[in-house]
């Protein structure tokens, strides 16, 4: 018993150091699911056409983040995940604004066509 007690403090210390070391060197692993679903949403919205560059960046960065995680480079993985997320959000925003603009353009075009028809019908009506 006396023999064993001699070792208790050092064991506790070692355990504490070990846990502390663990907590210190390892950040919580980055949450990639948000970035992943942001990319999926952007893709779904049509970013492949409206914002292909941003979508590609997001995908590449997410892939690089996974590789960084495999290398145990937590900080790099977290950075890349955040960048992938913001890239995907930009892709979504670009896609939505392009769609809204396309709708405006389409309406304007239809107005232009109508006006041409009006002019034509006025001319053909007024010529006689």
């Amino acid at each position: 018993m006396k023999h064993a007690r001699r070792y208790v403090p050092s064991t506790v210390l070692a355990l504490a150091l070990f846990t502390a070391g663990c907590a210190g060197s390892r950040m919580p692993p980055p949450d990639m699911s948000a970035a992943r679903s942001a990319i999926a949403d952007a893709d779904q919205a049509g970013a492949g056409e409206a914002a292909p560059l941003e979508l590609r960046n997001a995908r590449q960065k997410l892939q690089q983040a996974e590789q960084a995680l495999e290398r145990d480079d937590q900080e790099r993985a977290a950075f890349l995940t955040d960048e992938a997320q913001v890239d995907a959000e930009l892709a979504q925003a670009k896609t939505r604004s392009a769609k809204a603009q396309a709708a405006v353009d389409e309406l304007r075009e239809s107005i232009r066509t109508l006006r041409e028809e009006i002019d034509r019908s006025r001319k053909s009506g007024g010529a006689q």
Partner: protein
Amino acid sequence: MKHSAFLLTLALCPLLLAGCGGPPRANPALTSAREAYATASNDPSVVANAPVALQEAEEALRRAMAVWEGKEDTDKVDHYAYLAHQRVRIAEEQAKQRAAEKDIENVRNERQAVVLEARAAEAESAEARAAAERQRAEAARAEAEAALARANELAAQVNDLQAELTKRGLVLTLGDVLFDTGQASLKPGAARTTAALVTFLNENPERNVLIEGYTDSVGSDESNLSLSQRRADAVRAALVGQGIAGSRIRTQGYGEAYPVADNSIPAGRQQNRRVEIVISDAEGVIPARTP
């Protein structure tokens, strides 16, 4: 020499100080993110249409600034600057989207107005076309009526003239009773015969006449030719005397050519002694005589 060394030291002092305790070294990514944020936050459309996204961009920029001021690694500063810059872009895109969505409402209303205008114009032009069509139909009907009236009138006049419709058009034949034998001067009664022609020519100013003289086969060709020409000219003179413009009248003597009856019997010779008056068509044209 000593003086300039002193100056150099003086000049280097602020640099040394900056190196020690001044602000951290400029980071290009952060600088451009700050510039982008400054532009966006001065854009009324972004401020009005994407306030939340703009605030998120501002927060991201603050984080990046804090990292930079904390003199962290360039990689880290770059990373946070990148996030901030992308947030600015997101705010700008959102502002564009909202502005376009607001535009859609206005443009839709505008389109509705134009659709109504188009319908009105279509109705208007249909009405104009119908009116024009009615006008054309009316004009055509009036024209047809006028043509019919002219035709009827002409028929009546032709009837008065006792002219004959031939291949050359209307031909009025004046018999030899108008002239004494061998003479080219019209008898006094001839004026009554030509009166109907004068009336006709006055009523149809677009028509011209060709007066052709013919004889029987008695006598020489030359004398017959000359007599037929003189008789045609005498009829012309009578018409001119009654007010018909000389420019509308041509004459031609044919002598004993183109007989219409047998010259061997008196009745046939009497028929051959004649003056034919060919009346032109409405364009004033008289087809040439063919045997």
